């Protein structure tokens, strides 16, 4: 029994209800691993974690935009693979169309971004105009894109991996390089878009109630298409980062990330029912998942076990979200 139960209760409530709750959790994970894991708190490892989480971060940002409009985009990982193959076929390998040209890298980047935007646009049009459920639309486009990526790679180079990418492109993947900088900038822009602009308010309104938004003069279809186009673009950015970092174009890049992407957004507190979420929250979620994975990896936990633990953590996060709102509302 504490002498000041009300103070303790208030502190709990403040921490649990805080917008930075997940950031506190990150700190907790960090402090929990630091004493037992040699090198966990080293500058090198921290920088490593920050760089390693970039692809996930950019994907989670795009996913957050879609989740806020009460949708879901399952096609993002397939877009990574398709973008990777398309970009690699444009710029390099042994069969690249612009092999050796100085235009190779910019054209490849443009092609990758274009691929993501196109897939996102088709997703958005199906959902907004044909009123198909987002889950089905993006599930099928995931199947379509991953199949197309493998087929394209096999047609062009009779293999699934495309090597010999131009150095200018690979430079985008260097830690602290231009690519990382641009991606961080894109995440910041998405955050500002949501919090400070008219379009951001429309995203939330559509997520809350598309019918009321339509009656209030919000261009609902445009917002939905826009959300999926942005999600596709962000997926292409992740594709650029991964392709450059792994120095290979492959339809298999990012295949394992889908759970982490949605998990990070949910851990951050973004609602799957729409209308609630922030890019910043997803940043915390990504940080948390990456720290956890990295820490477990450094104490030599196997990959399978890490996946199991991550799954459990995401489940707990979903549970916590229910509890949090109850704790904050009660007392």
């Amino acid at each position: 029994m504490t002498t000041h139960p009300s103070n303790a209760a208030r502190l709990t409530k403040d921490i649990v209800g805080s917008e930075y709750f997940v950031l506190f959790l990150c700190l907790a994970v960090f402090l929990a691993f630091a004493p037992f894991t040699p090198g966990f708190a080293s500058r090198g490892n921290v920088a490593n974690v920050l760089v390693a989480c970039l692809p996930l971060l950019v994907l989670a940002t795009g996913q957050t935009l879609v989740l806020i409009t009460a949708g879901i985009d399952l096609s993002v990982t397939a877009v990574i693979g398709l973008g990777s193959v398309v970009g690699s076929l444009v710029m390099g390998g042994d069969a690249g169309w612009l092999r050796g040209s100085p235009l190779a890298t910019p054209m490849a980047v443009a092609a990758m971004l274009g691929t993501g935007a196109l897939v996102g646009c088709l997703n958005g049009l199906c959902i907004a105009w044909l009123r198909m459920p987002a889950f089905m639309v993006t599930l099928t486009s995931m199947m379509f894109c991953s199949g197309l990526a493998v087929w394209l790679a096999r047609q062009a180079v009779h293999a699934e991996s495309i090597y010999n990418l131009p150095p200018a492109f690979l430079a985008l993947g260097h830690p602290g390089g231009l690519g990382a900088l641009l991606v961080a900038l894109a995440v910041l822009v998405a955050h500002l878009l949501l919090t400070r602009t008219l379009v951001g308010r429309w995203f939330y309104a559509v997520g809350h109630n598309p019918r009321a938004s339509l009656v209030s003069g919000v261009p609902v279809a445009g917002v939905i298409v826009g959300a999926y186009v942005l999600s596709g673009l962000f997926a292409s950015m992740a594709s650029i980062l991964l392709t450059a970092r792994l120095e290979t174009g492959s339809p298999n890049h990012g295949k394992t990330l889908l759970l982490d992407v949605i998990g990070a957004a949910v851990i951050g507190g973004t609602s799957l029912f729409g209308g609630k979420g922030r890019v910043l929250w997803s940043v915390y979620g990504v940080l948390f998942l990456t720290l956890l994975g990295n820490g477990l990896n450094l104490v030599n936990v196997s990959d399978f076990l890490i996946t199991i633990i991550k799954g459990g953590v995401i489940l707990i996060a979903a549970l916590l979200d229910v509890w949090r709102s109850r704790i904050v509302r009660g007392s």
Partner: protein
Amino acid sequence: MSPSTASTDLPASIREPVVEFVDIQKSFFGVPVLKGVSFRVEGGRILGLVGENGAGKSTLMNLLGGNLQPDAGELRVEGRRYAPRDPKDARASGIAFVHQELNLFSNLSLADNLFLSDFPLVEPRRARFPPPEAPGGQNRGHAPQRALESKSGWRRRLRLPWIDRQTLHARATELLQQVGLDYPPQTLVERLSTGERQLVEIAKALSADARVIILDEPTTSLSFRECERLFALMNRLRSRGLALIYISHALGDILRLCDDLVVLRDGEKVGGGTAVEFNHERLVSMMVGRQLSQLYPNRIQPSAGNSVRSDADGTDLNPPPAEPSTPVLEVRSVSRPGAVRDVSFSLAAGEVLGVAGLMGAGRSELARILFGLDPHASGEIRLLGRRLEGNPRQRIRRGIAFLTEDRRHEGLCLEASVAENMALVTLARHCRTPVRWLDSAGIGSAVRRMREAVRLSPTVLESQSVRTLSGGNQQKVVLGKWLLAEPRVLILDEPTRGIDVGAKFEIYQLIHHRADQGAGILLISSEIEELMGICDRILVMCQGAIAGEFQRPEFDRERILAVALHPSKQ
């Protein structure tokens, strides 16, 4: 019509209180909502529970229905202490709650809905031989059941909880007959109208052998005929000895239907007694706690066209037709198959034009066409002389606003805050191009100004989600959202439905105020008194067409209703 006196004929045992509330107290977050309320509900009578939004009616009924538990005081059912822990307990004690938002599964059949919590099952085979106490002579009465037995014998042997479809349908058919619904029990609920669904809810209550039925605002979305049908059923249930608790803002219905009344205000019982002791004025002043000298405001500045306002009884002669000021909205032979037929009218600046008619007469459909939510096949709409076209977004920019009849689904983002909802339509005005950066200070001050203007209750926070607000405050948020856009034409579809008298009056004032600023108002309402109280002119629609038009001096409830019912007999 005076309340029925049938109950006095009933034996004294039924006049015993079925439910007693004894000094009930309840607080939420330290705020008292019920401050010691006591009254009794008798069998064979209808008790009307009235009060403004937030007076504590719903809390009281949620206590009875087992959704909430009282802090102090006692509930008694048939003299015994009754403390339900959940709605299941309440059902078991014979208390049924027909909610305002109907709790039916529209994808399931009537029979499934009626017995969802208690499906009749095929009895598992208990004994190899028939029980000895059942002689053969009595079995003749159970012939259908015996047929069933032989048919479902193999199912019995499996000992699984099979649903006994035959019994289910037989019992469902009987219940549906009792409430006067002529549908086979396999009919899916989604095919029924709102009024019919209300009857299904009541049938559900009957299936649970309810002795007390709570009806919370059952008539808000019912048509005139559906209401009459519901009232007739309620009278039948009363004569069967059931106790009914009826909550409604339609005081006319309350006075006509109920035997006893209880008036709540701010969590206290401020009055009660038999309904004959009350009239409309007394009820209203009791609810509001002050003398409401009038239900409808006078307009301070009559617009140029119409000088006759509050003295409708001034003259019976048709006054010289008022010189219409510039029309803001002109509608010329607009038609949409199955919805509206050849509708033409014009709306002047500063005019409040009412649209009367029964449900399904095409009033809401007309509003949706004008606002661009539905297309029209032929005809023309002009706003300030220019053709009005395009989607709602383009029309809003031209100066049209539409408060829909479905506040929860089309008017509000329920989870979003008061400020977010109010600012939604006018966000674009607070933008700095080219990236459409929002001027949050500008939005904030506009919202604060409007919340003053619509007199949103001071306890409401701007960051509060609108789901937590009362119906009246929610409607003020929607109205504020549109008033911020300063529309030239404001279309209001049932703006006061389900709202208490005080808030209604304030909404009428806001409507008049907007009209005085030069907007044309198109007001759709099912309450003829309301239209007569605040409109300058009333159009009556019937079967998609305009069947009649009344100027203010000719307003007459019976004549308007007659036109709405039978356009040919005008």
